[in-house]
């Protein structure tokens, strides 16, 4: 037995009004903040998915993206470290196709079925770039999804699947390409997307002896909203009733993460017994037949898609978007962006940097950060337990806003925060609006990119105003 036992998602807080791209365009798309990339979004989705789960019981992490910050260096390990997973686990990156997310899902299901792992976390994240003025720019969005695959407490059974491998040059990005390239869209969308997905669905229906009408929801993740009607017609389904909302108006196509994000959105509304059809396309197609179990009600307290989409800030200024995307780059910054590149310091300090571990003194019980050999309170030496602070909420003790830092960020808000349960930390704040910041404001932590130098990316935790407040059961005071 193998199935989905938990889900999570992440959509950046910021949405670019499409009207800012071109007057009259409708809706908005989710865009990463300047300090986010596919890796940081993946961490956020993974943590959403791990809510209430025993992190020490996870045996593997499979990560899918086409926008990895590295060509050589695994990202799954970064996500696993930030998620505070064990080190004796299997990790792998899946890439080079928008189908990589479902490829990772299939690999995880196979691993659990084969017994080489009991639980594997599958994460998919993308922040692709369409060239200014293209459909890709208008329709693309940034986001991430995560599903946990396990052999017990299954919320979604994977009953059957089918895959097609298709060597076809419709969209691509080569070494050094910033933007998505594509062949003529009439070819790419019909012979490529429409026909391949239709063929895979048809094969699955034959295998299962079902008709499209037997599914409560069909998840299509098309490259643009226009092709939806065409594909629905070919499959003989009503796009308005049976097809899961593709969220183009509020989020956009999030690449590798898109099918899994739409799956999460579907599961948020699904009832026990619902039969679902998940489709995914990219140099071929993956289709899965899923059934929802009554376990689904036990994993509802996620931010998921709904919680993430609810809280948003609109960017109506195209220049800001270009700056965050590093398409509009300023000259050298007046002050260093914070942090230095040092592989050895990163290694030495890994427990404070990735899972944000502070120390709790065994003698006086006080918590401190960053870890010290000698307790700052009672001065006992080397008598500590590590405690994870990344999932603790906190409150602002004092703050300042630095106007002389990089123009991309100015003003940079530095906040001293006190964690629930003890411990204080000096943080940079993210996803914040300056006028709303005050002493005592509740905050939570978010894994972000600090600085990139010579192709080396430094990540660390920042604090941000509570985003989870609206969907955490019981709420926060």
């Amino acid at each position, binding site marked *: 037995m193998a199935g989905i036992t938990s889900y999570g998602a992440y959509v950046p807080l910021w949405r670019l009004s499409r009207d800012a791209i071109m007057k009259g365009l409708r809706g908005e798309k989710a865009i990463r903040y300047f300090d986010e990339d596919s890796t940081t979004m993946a961490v956020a989705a993974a943590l959403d998915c791990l809510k209430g789960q025993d992190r020490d019981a996870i045996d593997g992490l499979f990560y899918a993206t086409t926008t990895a910050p590295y060509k050589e260096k695994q990202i799954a390990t970064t996500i696993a470290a930030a998620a505070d997973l064990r080190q004796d686990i299997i990790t792998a990156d899946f890439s080079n196709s928008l189908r990589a997310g479902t490829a990772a899902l299939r690999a995880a299901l196979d691993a659990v079925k084969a017994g080489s792992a009991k639980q594997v976390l599958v994460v998919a994240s993308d922040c692709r770039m369409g060239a200014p003025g293209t459909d890709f720019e208008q329709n693309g969005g940034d986001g991430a999804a995560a599903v946990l695959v396990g052999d017990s407490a299954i919320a979604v059974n994977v009953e059957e699947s089918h895959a097609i491998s298709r060597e076809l040059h419709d969209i691509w990005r080569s070494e050094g390409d910033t933007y998505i390239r594509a062949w003529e869209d009439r070819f790419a969308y019909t012979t490529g997307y429409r026909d391949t997905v239709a063929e895979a669905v048809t094969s699955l229906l034959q295998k299962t002896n079902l008709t499209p009408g037997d599914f409560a929801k069909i998840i299509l993740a098309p490259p643009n909203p226009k092709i939806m009607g065409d594909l629905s017609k070919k499959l003989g389904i009503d796009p308005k009733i049976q097809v899961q909302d593709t969220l183009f108006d509020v989020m956009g196509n999030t690449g590798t993460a898109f099918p899994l994000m739409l799956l999460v959105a579907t599961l948020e509304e699904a009832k026990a017994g619902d039969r679902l059809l998940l489709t995914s396309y990219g140099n071929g197609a993956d289709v899965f037949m899923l059934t929802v179990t009554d376990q689904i009600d036990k994993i509802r307290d996620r931010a998921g898609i709904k919680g993430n989409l609810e809280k948003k800030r609109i960017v109506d200024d195209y220049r800001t978007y270009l700056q965050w995307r590093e398409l509009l780059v300023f000259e050298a910054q007046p002050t260093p*962006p*914070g*942090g*230095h590149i040092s592989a050895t310091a990163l290694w030495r300090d890994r427990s404070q940097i990735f899972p944000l571990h502070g120390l709790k003194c065994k003698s006086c019980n006080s918590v401190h950060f960053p870890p*010290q050999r000698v307790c*700052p309170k009672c001065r006992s030496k080397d008598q500590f337990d590590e405690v994870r602070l990344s999932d603790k909420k906190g409150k602002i003790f004092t703050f*300042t806003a*630095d*106007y002389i830092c990089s123009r991309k960020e100015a003003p940079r808000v530095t906040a001293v925060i006190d964690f629930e349960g003890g411990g204080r930390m*000096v943080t940079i704040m993210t996803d914040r609006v300056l006028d709303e910041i005050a002493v005592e404001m509740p905050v939570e932590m978010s894994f972000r990119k600090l600085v990139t130098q010579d192709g080396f990316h430094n990540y660390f935790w920042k604090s941000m105003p509570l985003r989870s407040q609206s969907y955490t059961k019981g709420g926060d005071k």
Partner: protein
Amino acid sequence: MPGIKDRVAVVGMGCTKFGELWDKSDQDLMVESCHEALADAGIDLKEIQAAWLGIQGAETGCSGCRLARALKTDYIPITRVENYCATGIEAFRGGAYAVAAGIYDIVLACGAEKLKDTGATGLTQMGGEPQFGSWVWAPVVAPARFALAATRYFHVYGLTPEEGKRMLAMIAVKNHHNGSLNPRAHFQREITIEQAMNAPMIAWPLGLYDCCGVSDGSAAAIITRPDIARRIKDDYIVVKALGISAGAGTQGVMADDYDFIHIDEIVKSGRMAYEEAGITDPRKEVDIAEVHDCFTITEVLISEDLGFTPRGKYKEDIEAGTFNLGGEVAINADGGLKCFGHPIGASGLRMLFESYLQLRGQAGPRQLKNPRIGVAQNYGGQPGGGISGMAIVGARD
């Protein structure tokens, strides 16, 4: 422990004009301040038996040779010291203790800094390990470090941002007034409360006029024993106390019981020095205090930490004029870091230079009436984990 009280004297001092001295190197500035000090003492460079050079700079790997090469000393011992922004007092301290220990008769302490060769408006990143945290994540820049204290001070004492900023603006106005009376100061222009309050923001709530000058400059002192001083000149001054405290961070950003509105190492260095000098009521006994006003809020914290005003009462006192020239304790009579400027290694000795002038009646338009005790308080680093240096000097008996 006999302590340092009355055991060493200062017989000569020099101080360059501070500012953006584009046409001068740090060694040019060392030559100026040291030769002024030698001329003031009326002695020859050959009589200097050892020297201490305080310089911080962006340049680590610097040594005493920098001063030796500038002055062309004759292969005497020269020690280079660095202790954050309290480097100037540290250089003075080294020389004073060597004389008190009886190792040398006459020594030189020089502080110098050339900050304006980097192309940066503020300070650039210093070399070496970060003061706090890991290399990998951001250390907090200087204005932000102290701005965190300002936000908290306003919160704790119930000041609206407007009231808080007005209190800080009064400090900038006072120090600019004092600087306008000082031809060696970097900034010599008076400003208004409104100018200070409406200035461009640097690190909320600190605006441009809440931040000290980033300057080039040098200051120097010639230190000897009182019995030798008497032979050199009549109006020498004596050292009453020296104190330095290195913050361990146990009351700083790591400690969740730290209040952010006092700085422990400043309190400790103050206690150390007051005890040595025999001062029990600083507000009454200290006539002039040059304190480390790197930011206006720092002057507030230091004034409370050193007992010039009770906790939370700085606002009342600045409004009452307590810290003006002619007030109960003249604080930063020479313009302070705010207006005299802050060439890091030189600042501690620049502070002593004002007491040296004031105690000898040579401070011109800033001259106080018959001052007897002067304090120089020099600070650097991250509050709670920084260095505070104190020197107390007095007129000769």
